[in-house]
């Protein structure tokens, strides 16, 4: 599946009136897919509420970036605050949705996205507080890593970002919800069969009678 279709699907999670945080990488890209008249407030950890689409080169403001370092524009009605207020907003659960990347995510909604011991440890950033405190955490990632291993696991093996925090997982192959019963398949990519999906997913999937396509 194309990145374009994946990000477009993820963008559908966002509803008018919400306050959203988008992680570095794929999640941030989905802003570009939101209608210009949609009333949402996008929060960036570096102290911006009302972050909007990337600034074109000629309009880039050197003092206005998002947490990933992209030069951005701001929506009317936005506000600027210091990093303590920015995380006060997170810890007070004022975010409706955080969409984050993952190295691993499991059937219980456990998330690992900050450290691969011995190989990758650039720091925690805002991930821990976002994962632990956002009302609804959605993981957006590729279904399998570069060597084909499933990122969707029965149980995470890497150091956790937060336990039991993820509600929904959106990958290039499927949309899945974490439920009390287990990982419920909601939608499948158009270019995959159910057998192929099960084969490339380490976690157990609950297969409902009707499965959407995207």
């Amino acid at each position: 599946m194309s990145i374009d279709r994946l990000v477009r699907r993820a963008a559908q999670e966002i509803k008018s009136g919400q306050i959203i945080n988008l992680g570095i990488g794929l999640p941030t890209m989905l802003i570009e897919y939101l209608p210009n008249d949609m009333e949402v407030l996008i929060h960036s950890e570096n102290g911006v509420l009302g972050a909007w689409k990337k600034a074109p080169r000629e309009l880039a403001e050197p003092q206005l970036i998002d947490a990933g370092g992209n030069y951005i524009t701001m929506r009317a009605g936005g506000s600027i605050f210091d990093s303590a207020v920015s995380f006060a907003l997170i810890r007070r659960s004022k975010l409706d949705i955080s969409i984050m990347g993952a190295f691993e995510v499991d059937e219980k909604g456990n998330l690992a996205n900050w450290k691969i011991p011995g190989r990758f440890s650039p720091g925690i950033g805002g991930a821990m507080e976002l994962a632990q405190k956002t009302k609804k955490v959605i993981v957006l990632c590729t279904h399998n890593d570069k060597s084909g291993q499933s990122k969707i696991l029965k149980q995470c093996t890497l150091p956790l970002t937060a336990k039991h925090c993820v509600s929904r997982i959106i990958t290039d192959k499927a949309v899945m919800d974490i439920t009390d019963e287990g990982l419920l398949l909601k939608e499948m990519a158009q270019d995959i069969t159910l057998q192929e999906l099960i084969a490339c997913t380490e976690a157990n999937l609950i297969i409902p009678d009707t499965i959407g396509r995207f």
Partner: protein
Amino acid sequence: MNKQQTIEESIAKIPHGAVIMVGGFGSPGTPFSLINELIRQGQKNLTLIKNDANEKAIGISKLIENGQVDKLITTHIGLNKGVVEMMNSGQMQVMFFPQGILAEKIRIAGAGSFGFLSDIGIDSEITDPSQLIEWQGKTLKIESALNADFALIHAQKADLYGNLIYRASAMNFNPLMAMAANHVIAETPNIVPVGDLVPESIHTPSAFVASVVALQSLTKEYEVMERRFEY
């Protein structure tokens, strides 16, 4: 109450081994000129506290590359492979905190308190059991306040008393650090007369600032980074 100083005399106050907070999240709000003067003067064995390590060859990355930094207290250095390698090879000690915990540790130091009770990451590998207490029926983690000897601050505007105003995402850690460090040095490209700033719009009251440095011009480091448009 006129706190204007030359960049040379303001940075000369910093001794070897100082603990220095540096404002900025990425480039915005990073006091590049003060950092460049610190490189010129060559103070060594520094401990830096900054959200990130900037990117290669600018800001505190230059200080680190120049061997002046023993320890970095930060949240995320993913945009700086060189510093990650120095950490991995043991050339420099790096201590990580969750971003909002780092911000709040600095905020609580700036408030003259000594620590705060948090529920962030208490069941994760970043928590040592010795930091946990039972308080009013909850298991909580004591996060210590983080003070510093100096803070290097970039402000959009300042008056001669040291009242500071920040712009856009250049605010970030700057107002927090300006309260938490014992000696605060602020650079600004816009010095305005005392009385020009609207009292309610001042982000850092003058009482917290020791010295104000007027920048005559801004180096290329303050401009839009072309490499960020190479998608």
